[in-house]
């Protein structure tokens, strides 16, 4: 084995390989944009990266859930607005019909209109988005009501499922996301269907007293309807708040994970440049080493 300048050649090769590996790693980080590609790149950051990414994924799904709920709430709110307009007209009809001054022909016309409006209310109770009934409660695929003018309240209930579906926001707070058609349109003591049915039938064959009774039922229904409107209004506000909260958290988590996982480009570029300069200097210095010995000077 040699002694002298070139006895260190193996050490030089080791260091050169090491420098080239560092350059390759820096280049990989720069091109991929990812600093942590495998567990040993930063073992202490792995758990945080995985849990943060998981939280981000769940927030993304939450946003999807909130968007669906928002869509349903918007539809429901629009439907209830229409119901409100219909109820106003029915109250007006009832007021006219309750007057003894209304002639039979006019009463008959009012009765016809009231019946049409009553059946329109049943249709609104069956509002759909695709194949789902907005007021279907826990069973959105079963039609809530069908028209049954042969008996009060003029509609037959087809869906008896309650509305217990809750949505949770990112902090875990739960919120009911809907009301059933039964609760809105056919609540005990304040049934909109009954009020409209009784008005139509009383205008057709009843007395003014009957019409007045139906009118009072309608007014009770209007009060009840306002409660439903408030519910969906509050629901929309809650959804918006939850969505904003989720967006804010997602932004924060995205920043966190970038700090943990992504490449610090200025640092990586500086390191790579520095290593390249070192490599060039080492190659140049090693090449300048004299390879001559005393034997080369023998005559």
């Amino acid at each position, binding site marked *: 084995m040699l002694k002298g300048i070139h006895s260190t050649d193996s050490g030089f090769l080791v260091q050169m390989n090491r420098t080239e590996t560092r350059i390759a790693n820096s280049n990989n980080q720069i091109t991929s944009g990812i600093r942590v590609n495998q*567990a040993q790149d930063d073992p202490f950051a*792995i758990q945080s990266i995985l849990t943060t990414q998981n939280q981000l994924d769940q927030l993304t799904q939450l946003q999807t859930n909130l968007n669906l709920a928002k869509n349903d709430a918007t539809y429901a709110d629009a439907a209830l607005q229409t119901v409100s307009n219909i109820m106003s007209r029915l109250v007006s009809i009832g007021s006219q019909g309750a007057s003894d001054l209304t002639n039979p022909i006019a009463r008959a016309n009012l009765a016809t209109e009231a019946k049409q409006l009553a059946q329109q209310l049943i249709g609104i109770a069956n509002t759909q988005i695709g194949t789902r009934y907005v007021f279907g409660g826990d069973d959105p695929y079963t039609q809530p009501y069908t028209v049954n003018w042969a008996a009060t309240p003029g509609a037959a209930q087809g869906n008896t499922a309650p509305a217990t579906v809750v949505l949770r926001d990112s902090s875990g707070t739960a919120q009911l996301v809907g009301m059933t058609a039964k609760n809105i349109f056919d609540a005990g003591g304040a049934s909109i269907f009954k009020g409209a049915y009784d008005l139509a039938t009383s205008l057709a064959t009843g007395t003014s007293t009957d019409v007045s009774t139906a009118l009072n039922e309608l007014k009770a229904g209007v009060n009840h309807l306002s409660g439903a409107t408030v519910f969906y209004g509050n629901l929309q506000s809650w959804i918006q708040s939850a969505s904003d909260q989720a967006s804010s958290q997602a932004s924060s988590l995205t920043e966190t994970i970038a700090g943990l996982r992504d490449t610090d480009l200025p640092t990586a570029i500086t390191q790579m440049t520095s290593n390249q300069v070192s490599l060039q200097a080492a190659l140049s210095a090693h090449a300048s080493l004299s390879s001559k010995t005393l034997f080369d000077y023998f005559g």
Partner: protein
Amino acid sequence: MSLITTTIQSAGTSLSAFEQAINVIQNNVNNASVPNYTAQSPALASSWFGVVFQKSTDARNDYAERAVWDTNQSLGMASSQADNLSLIQAQFDVSGSAGVPGALSKLYSAFSAWSTSPADSTARNQVLVNAKLVAQSFNKAATSLEQSSNQLDTQIANTVGKINDLSAQVAGINQHIYDTNDTNPSEQAQLYSVLQEFSRYSNVAVHVEENGTATVLLNGQVPLVVGNTVSKLEVKYPSAASPTNPPAPPSAKITANNGQDVTGSALAGGELGGLLKIRNEVLPSIIGSQGEQGSLNKLAKQVADRVNNILTSGTDSNGNPGKSLFTYSASAPTGTALTLDVDSTVTPDDLAAALGGVSNGVPNKLAALANSSDPLDQVDGSTYTAFYGKMASGIGSRAANAAADKTSRTDQLTQAENLRSQVSGISLNEQAAMLMQYQQAYQAVSQMISVVNNLTGYLMNMVGNS
């Protein structure tokens, strides 16, 4: 005349000695690049019949050699660990979007989507699909790690074979030294090359006798080579005395020629020590062994049991209790990850959503597994994703430490080899200077012979003329 004759004889002896000295220099120069060939120095002595050549002295330094061997053993251990841990860590996803953590995240999302529409068949079907992905991700992880274990078994067998081959080589050199009753520098270079390679593979203690033969002991205790006798090592896989998990693969054991278990000695250093450490300690902590369940199996079992528990606590749309979703082999705790699957008889309609009067109580509870602080939803105080992260982090730490150790030991070995070459190596400049010295001496003695020869001729002429 007798003095002249003696002078010529003395000069002849000296010329012979200088020739042998020059021959030593020549051998040094010829073998300068041969690994482990140390500088030989001609030893000349003065006698009444001229300069005589004694046996050349060897510049080999025992301390420098042992420093190289010790460092080489440490490097061997660090290298085998770094190289294998680097491969094992690659099987752990660290992005969160693939492997086990990615599959778990998708499953949580499927639960969450299901919660918005508990009666929706598409959402239910997605739960089944993503549950299957979770099972497959655990299967794949377990299979990959078992393959790593099998590859380690192969490496261990190859390393033991290599150790036995090196033992045979040392014994062969020892036998040659016995046969010739002599040792030459080339043979010693070969012996020390083999010993250096030996040190890479295992933690050996070497004693070089005065006659140049070597005795090699594993960890200074177990004979591998004594004279021309080889004691071979073997790899065996005996079942543990009282296994907690009998069906699991047993640990690798190294036995000596006499059947003695020398695994402890083998673990002490060298590539064999590094391989055994990973095979018998690192991998079993993840995939299990006859003595432990393994963290991957622990996680798989907890995920399966908890999801099943929540599902069966709910009721379906007909009021029937929910069915379990995941299955695994309960008779083999170390096979949980490998055998985890989704019950093929479970249909989307079998997924019970209602719980506690809430129609989506079950999917809500399942979705909450993603970040739950309830101990029932955790493994050793961590969420499932965090627990997996701990596993990956543990392997990553080991890999990083082993890589750093390998770097450090490589530098130490380079330094030790440089020191050895500085102490025992051949300097071409020194050899050239010595060659010039002996060349001048040879020329001087030759000139002496020429002068004495001329004197002899002159005397002969004087005698003839008289």
